[in-house]
């Protein structure tokens, strides 16, 4: 994984428990931050775009919530969207089951990636070898 991070540093969109959401920002601000900082996107436009992308997950209602009040899956979606906001993003998802410990398999990860597949160029998922069985469903969905 370190290799992938170093290789794609400029376009890296990291989704990891080790890269947590910024706790003093609302959910939408965590996502908007990337384009506001790197592309100087005005606040109102950034908010509209984030709300539109949250609607893809049916999560528009969580936009103004604080990070501490989010469920695991909502937190994962915010992390994923934040990563996808990087220009020509290379998503690196590090042990998704650490972010969503209650998940049975990786189908939710696959579905989430499909909802935003126009927002990133590549996606790499890293996990322990012994977690391989959890990803069977993901292969079935061609991810």
């Amino acid at each position, binding site marked *: 994984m370190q290799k992938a*991070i170093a290789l794609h*540093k*400029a376009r*890296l*969109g*990291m989704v990891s428990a*080790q*890269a*947590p*959401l*910024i*706790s*003093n920002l609302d959910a939408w601000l965590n996502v*908007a*931050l*990337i384009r*506001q*900082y*790197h592309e*100087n*996107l*005005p*606040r109102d436009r*950034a908010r509209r775009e984030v709300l539109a992308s949250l609607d893809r997950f049916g999560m528009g209602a969580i936009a103004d919530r604080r990070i501490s009040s989010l469920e695991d899956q909502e937190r994962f979606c915010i992390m994923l969207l*934040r990563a996808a906001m*990087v220009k020509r993003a290379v998503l690196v998802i590090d042990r998704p089951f650490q972010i969503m410990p209650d998940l049975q398999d990786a189908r939710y990860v696959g579905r989430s990636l499909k909802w935003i597949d126009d927002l990133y160029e590549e996606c790499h998922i890293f996990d322990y070898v012994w977690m391989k069985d959890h990803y069977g469903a993901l292969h079935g969905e061609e991810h």
Partner: protein
Amino acid sequence: MAQILKTLGNPFVKNVLSAQETLAFAGVVISKVFSRRSYNSATKMVLVNQIYFTAVEILPLFITVSIIFGSLLIGIVFAVIKDLGLAEYLGSILMGFVVTELAPFITVLLIALRSSSAIDAEIAVMKVNQELNTLSLFNIDVLDYLFVPRIVNGMVSVVLLSCLFSILVLGSGMLFSFFIFGMGLDTYGNTLLNSTKFSDIVIMLLKCMTFGFFITLIPIRFGLRASHELTSIPVAVLNGMVKVFIAIVIIEVLSLILRFI
């Protein structure tokens, strides 16, 4: 003897090195503050929020303290001036004491108590939670995004609140001058204007900006010193706040020396 020197020397060398590091960090931050590239939509938003938290939310407390403390003090000053027969120096005393000395000092104490401790804890929590790591993974410069807005906010807030303190205290001085000296509004205003020196205003503004710079820079530096353990947060806040108060005293003393040279 060697042991005594060693005991005294170690903390001294440590403090000198720490001060040197802080000044080096201050140099880097100053270059960022004046760089246009540091300002984008995200940093501007942080700056506006910080000014709101520091200079606007504090207003009810600040105005109450300014009116109560300022009026009491100005009442005492006026009574002493009357007793000593120094009425002709009223303007100079008010401008020299209230505007250039009292206003920045009271303001910086209130802001340091409220905002410096908050900034120290916030940065320490972000360090412990690995949120600073998140920012660097997304190629976001923490100096631009976190530090520059907080430091600019410190400078702006101390200047604005010091001016507000001066206006409130000089306003209450107007009432006291009427009751104690029977002085009208015109006479009081003229006395103040005649005693206003451009150099006093410049010194006051520079002092406020220096105060604002260091009471935000030092908490940031000490917040960054937190480790990845929760228990390091109170230690970072404690050490940072002690250094903030030392910095306030040093700046105050230096400004007094500069004024009377």
